[in-house]
């Protein structure tokens, strides 16, 4: 699969987000501009309350921006055409999420946690199972396919979560502290894996992190301070 580094997958233009009104108004994001290209792995850095998670939520079609435009894989979102169910479908088709604490469904085994996304996307049960096993094998957790999440180690659970995020071949992967629950060795392995997958799937990865040990695994580091984005330092 060839990577076209010039193609913008996530385009955030003049995005602002505030919560509350009057004296209670909090400006979480102020005139954010961000462009992430295919195959790029970028980090959002900043202290707590700087707006990292809010920006991730806006890009992930979870909360609406107060102003500005967001274009995801050539689709302009938040322009009144989109219903909440449409945004959920957009998330299913184009965005994969990786969480700090893996958030696997505790009542499904590793294989079905991955297959669920494919089933929701309309794939047949057989196709969903086949692709889930393929991904788990690729991420070297295929031998744990029948294990429940509670029985997986932190690293295994995070790899299953990555498999779930990749299951539907999304163009955008949003990761919230993807290595926070892992030791430095496993954190490096997970980041290398994400880089490899971004390149192979022509996807971009935007990760919120505080983990300085993995800064060198990112193509660009963006700093958020008081809702403003500085950025694009090369790691």
């Amino acid at each position: 699969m060839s990577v076209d580094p010039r193609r913008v997958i996530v385009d955030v233009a003049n995005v602002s987000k505030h919560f509350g009104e009057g004296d209670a108004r909090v400006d979480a994001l102020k005139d954010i501009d961000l462009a992430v290209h295919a195959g790029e792995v970028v980090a959002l850095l900043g202290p707590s309350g700087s707006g990292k998670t809010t920006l991730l939520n806006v890009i992930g079609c979870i909360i609406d921006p107060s102003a500005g435009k967001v274009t995801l894989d050539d689709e302009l979102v938040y322009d009144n055409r989109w219903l909440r169910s449409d945004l959920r479908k957009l998330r299913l088709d184009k965005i994969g999420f990786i969480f700090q604490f893996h958030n696997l469904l505790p009542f499904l085994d590793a294989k079905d946690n991955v297959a669920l996304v494919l089933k929701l996307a309309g794939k047949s049960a057989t196709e969903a199972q086949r692709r889930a096993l393929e991904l788990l094998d690729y991420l070297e957790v295929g031998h744990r396919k029948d294990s429940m999440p509670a029985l997986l180690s932190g690293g295994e659970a995070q790899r299953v979560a990555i498999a779930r995020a990749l299951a539907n071949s999304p163009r955008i992967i949003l990761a919230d502290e993807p290595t926070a629950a892992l030791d430095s060795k496993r954190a490096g392995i997970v980041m290398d894996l994400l880089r490899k997958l971004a390149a192979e799937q022509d996807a971009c990865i935007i990760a919120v992190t505080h983990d300085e040990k993995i800064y060198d695994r990112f193509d660009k580091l963006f700093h958020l301070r008081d809702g403003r984005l500085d950025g694009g330092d090369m790691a």
Partner: protein
Amino acid sequence: MNLAYRDVRHNLFRFVLTCLGLSLLMAVVLAMIGIYNGLVSDALNIVKAPQVDLWVVESGTQGPFAEASKLPGGTRDAVARLHGVVAAGSITYQTVEAPFRGDTLRLYLIGYEPGRPGGPDVVSQGRGIEQSHFEIVADVKSGLSIGDVIRLGRNPFTVVGLVEDTTNSGGDPAAFITLRDAQVLQTQLAPAAQRVQEARGAGLLESQDSVAAVIARLKPNADPQAVAQTVQQWKHLTALTQADQESILLLSVVDRAKRQIGLFLGILLTVSAVVIALIIYTMTMEKLKQIATLKLIGAPDRTIIGLIVQQSLALGAVGWSFGLILILLVKDYFPRRVVLEPINAAALAGIILVVCIAASGLGVRAALKVDPATAIGG
């Protein structure tokens, strides 16, 4: 991939425990329905037992069950001669308490004339009354066995037969004796009181030849209403058809108990609905993070609603089934008869279905309000 089933399987022990609790509640609801049915059935059994078409009672009364009624013994002959009457018999009813094996046995005594209407319909063990005196046929619930001797008044009676499902509306087991024995029992004084009466020269307080009612079987083509109207021409008598008698019994004797149990049943169903709603709501609240994750990865609302509603229905179905099995296993140990008809179980299933769907609405509302953003971050 059924998420509701997977979640239940994952938390099977807790789900089964919850179902068990709910099933106990369902068993109590079914028991109340069964007790109510038993009450009605017992009351009607006594009226239906003689298999007659007409009840002739004292004028102005609704006897002999709803009110006391007293007729001269000779009334039977007059009724038997009426056009359309095939057979008539005199009958008395009284409740007695008799010492038996160191305990007190409460019996609903029916005095009848052997060979005439009023006796037991089917004797399940032993035989019917063949002697003129001191034989008794009792309901099995009395605990009496064939050959047992029980003292009623001054005389010992021998149990010669047993019948089933013959109790009065109060749940007292019925026992049949001859009319003569019943009349003596009603009027005979204790020896000391008898001596006082004789010393006063008063003799017996009242005539022994009185009965509670005269019952009559009619020819197949006879109109009970027409025969009843004929009887009413005698000013000292009132005639009630079998349907009238059943209606009086249900309205006057059973009605208060029926309303009491009905109210209690309503409270139980309300409590069940609240309990189911709370269980479903709690189950949903425990899954909020998972529901947020499902929303975040793009699961449509119908998937989330399905998860909650299916679990709610499963809870209701299992609770109802266990409850039904439980009550069927223990119903014969209740002091009162518990009668459950398939329609009762089906009606409760329908109510539980509605309650479960309504109760899951609370959980669904909570689930749909979950912000998918809560899945992001710790």
